[in-house]
């Protein structure tokens, strides 16, 4: 029973970390704070994946989101501002109407979710997922798997082409 309480406590900690960092991303005036807020958001989500028994996904999240996308965003920020201007304040559009709209969206979502009877399949017991995911990639999900590789190829070609210097 004590273990249950501890695990609940840890869950709420990570939930708060995730949402708090996300709030920093949205409302912070400094771009660098936003980026680091995003870092902790990704980290919090990875922890939540672990709670949900998705071990492979949690590792993938850390490696790709933090190790790849976040670093890319950081490069993007660094390369698009003068280096000494790291204070990087950003202005915002009309906040109040947006806040109202977003609150309405959030309210609707919560209302809809609480009124729903979700599909009742079995609840999956926690067990390592990596081997099973690997098998699924080669069987039921083989088509998306192969398509994803072509997809990444054109993303690669396209991104490299746009950024390349020089005359057309």
């Amino acid at each position, binding site marked *: 029973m004590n273990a249950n309480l501890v695990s*609940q406590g840890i*869950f709420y900690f990570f*939930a708060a970390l*995730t*949402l708090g960092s*996300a709030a920093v*991303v*949205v409302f912070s005036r400094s*771009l660098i704070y*936003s980026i680091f807020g*995003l870092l902790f*958001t990704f980290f919090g*989500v990875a922890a*939540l*994946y672990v*709670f*949900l*028994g*998705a071990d*492979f*996904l949690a590792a993938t*999240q850390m490696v*790709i*989101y933090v190790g790849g*996308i976040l670093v*890319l*965003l950081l*490069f*993007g920020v660094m390369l*698009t*501002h003068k280096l000494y201007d790291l204070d990087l304040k*950003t202005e*915002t*559009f009309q*906040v109040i109407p*947006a*806040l109202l*709209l*977003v*609150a309405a*969206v*959030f309210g609707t*979502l*919560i209302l809809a*979710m609480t009124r729903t009877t*979700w599909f*009742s*399949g079995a*609840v*999956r017991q926690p067990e390592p*997922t990596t081997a099973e*995911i690997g098998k699924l990639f080669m069987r039921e*999900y083989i088509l998306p798997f192969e398509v*994803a590789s072509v997809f*990444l190829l054109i*993303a690669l070609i*396209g991104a*490299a082409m*746009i*950024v390349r210097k020089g005359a057309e």
Partner: protein
Amino acid sequence: MIGLTHYLVISAALFSLGIMCVLTRKNAVSVLMGIELILNSANLNLVAFSKYTAGNLDGQLFAVFTIIVAAAEAAVALAIVLSMYRLLRSVNLDRADTLKG
């Protein structure tokens, strides 16, 4: 007891925060961060449903592909933003105004 609803509330909050970020920010990279929040919220939904309603790994597989798409999109978006910076020396969306409307 931690249940499905807890995760759904978190993902709804993340989704709303992501929309807020997209609507109110003027810096192109900030808008990108909002988009990443939205995609993460959807992923959280997928994994939560995978455990509690579907009972199999379908949601997790879907989430892996979403991560793949998000990475590619972020790369291309940053390439375009860098290209904009090279042309305009700024990534403030107010400066993107030659096409009226």
